[in-house]
């Protein structure tokens, strides 16, 4: 019992780490967000954020992040479910994860080639008799590539929580006369919901601040908050405004974490199911 109240010494590195690399940077971001170009205190950055440009940018970031997450879930859930049923689970899982080891920029450049006017995607379209289409630099290409990049991060947590479900529970559900659909809805889905939630966190939050592929794949026709932060820091050198956007991004992330955080009840149930 004493261990719990007097914090043990071996946690010291952890606390130092958190203080230096989590709390201090966030404090600095908040501090800079109150500075103007000359380094004086100001609230103007916050007023500016609520101007129409940034407000619409926030909305469009959310819209694209929402689409990317939704499509990822729709693809990843059946995939993960199917994975739990296969013989060589770990092998299949590995094959899904391997693409995430490849550098993001490389993947983006590969897609520039694939989606180009003379690329394989258009050759396929022409084979079916239509003229070459502009695929690159459209909303479609942006969402497609983003989903492709994020899929492994969605499959993994869903797979883990589905795989943990005790098969006896499903047998019991069947024995008690539940149809396959009812079993899924009342047993499997609630037990695996935490996996979906962590997947949503792992996808939605980074999707809000994507910026490399907005330029390479969407040709800057999709503007996210990440693009704006990059520009404020590197081009305009207005660190105050960049920090202000970052503060809002952090706030949005906290809200999303709270909304999708695991509930006590669900956690306990999952624990028992083991």
């Amino acid at each position, binding site marked *: 019992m004493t261990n719990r109240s007097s914090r043990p010494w071996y946690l010291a590195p952890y606390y130092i780490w958190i203080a230096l690399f989590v709390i201090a940077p966030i404090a600095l971001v908040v501090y800079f967000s109150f500075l103007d170009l000359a380094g004086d205190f100001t609230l103007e950055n916050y007023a500016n954020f609520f101007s129409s440009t940034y407000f619409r940018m926030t909305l469009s970031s959310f819209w694209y992040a929402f689409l990317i997450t939704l499509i990822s879930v729709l693809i990843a859930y059946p995939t993960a479910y199917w994975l739990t049923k296969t013989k060589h689970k770990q092998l299949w899982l590995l094959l899904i994860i391997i693409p995430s080891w490849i550098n993001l920029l490389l993947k983006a450049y590969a897609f520039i080639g694939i989606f180009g006017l003379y690329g394989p995607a258009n050759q396929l379209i022409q084979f079916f008799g239509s003229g070459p289409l*502009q695929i690159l630099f459209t909303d479609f290409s942006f969402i497609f590539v983003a989903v492709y990049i994020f899929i492994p991060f969605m499959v993994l947590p869903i797979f883990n929580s589905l795989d943990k479900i005790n098969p006896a529970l499903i047998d019991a559900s069947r024995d008690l006369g539940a149809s396959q659909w009812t079993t899924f809805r009342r047993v499997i889905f609630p037990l695996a919901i935490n996996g979906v939630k962590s997947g949503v966190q792992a996808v939605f939050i980074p999707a809000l601040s994507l910026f490399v592929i907005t330029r390479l794949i969407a040709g800057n026709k999709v503007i996210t908050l990440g693009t*704006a932060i990059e520009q*404020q820091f590197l081009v*305009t*050198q207005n660190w105050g405004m960049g920090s202000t956007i970052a503060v809002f991004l952090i706030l949005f992330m906290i809200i999303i974490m709270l909304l999708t955080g695991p509930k006590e009840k669900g956690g306990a149930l999952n624990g028992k199911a083991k």
Partner: protein
Amino acid sequence: MKGIVRASAAIVIISAILFYAVHLLESSTATSGSGSISVYNWGEYIDTDLIDQFEEETGIQVIYETFDSNESMMTKIEQGGTSYDVAMPSEYAIEKMKENDLLLPIDHSKIPNLKNIDPYFLDLPFDPGNEYSIPYFWGTVGIAYNPTLLEGQTFESWDDLWNPTLEQEVILVDSAREVIGMGLNSLGYSLNSTDLGELREATDKLKTLGPNVKAIIGDEIVEMMRREEAAVAVTWSGQAADMMWINEDIDYAVPEEGSNLWFDNMIIPSTAGNVDGAHQFINFMLDAEVSAQNADYVGYSSPNAAALELMDPEVTGDERFYPTERMRDRLEVYENLGLEMLGVYNELFLEFKMDMEK
């Protein structure tokens, strides 16, 4: 417990071996000669064979890094994380770096090859007497286009970009001053305008270009044009030259309303660690033969008169890339507008990207 100890021991030993290997590698590459210099340059802006030649001749090891905008270069030098010895900013960036005391004066007695430079490019308003900077390349902003994809359309005016037949064909360079500047020029205003009314008007006009805009990207433009993915691009003259090198159909024009004339220069940042090596490098780059080879490779216009004599007259006589002095008169050089104004330009550029008519 035993397992943990063993695992930790293994990690420590592997780290030590890796550390030693890295140490060995680094010392084997940087042994000879008088140290090393860090060169910070734009992407695709030097013939890398010349770096090897410089290393061989002087024994100075060159660490080469690239940037993609003046602003990001200045931010990195200001933060001082890496001590760069030579960098190649544009003229308005030099003005700003001078204001912020980020430059070291250049000792002309250590740069005998300075005599090779055409006097037209010396003693310019952004750096009187070339106290802090030495010309590297110069060029213009204009329109690169592929006539074979356009049924012979030409570009005498910026307004030609608004032609409805160019739907989804135009690529713009991802840089606020170039794009907003083009909007200002097309309305007959100065591209150094600080008049908010003029800037608003230019931005609103640019938004109507939306249906024709295919993408707003950086160095990828060259590849897109070479592969005929796009027919028209607003870009720098040297990028256009790069495109033509591979795809001979491409042409380049500077619209008659005027455009930007720019100069990139070699400077020594105040954070430099090897000032002597930096002087040697600058002098080396000004050598007639080196400079000619470099200009041949990079494709931008060289200010080096001695080098031009060694180059193909067909290249140096091409008025698209070496406009005559009379043609240069209708071009404008960027002025340093200050951070506040730069912020305005960028906000407007962001607004343009957000609100392009689809």
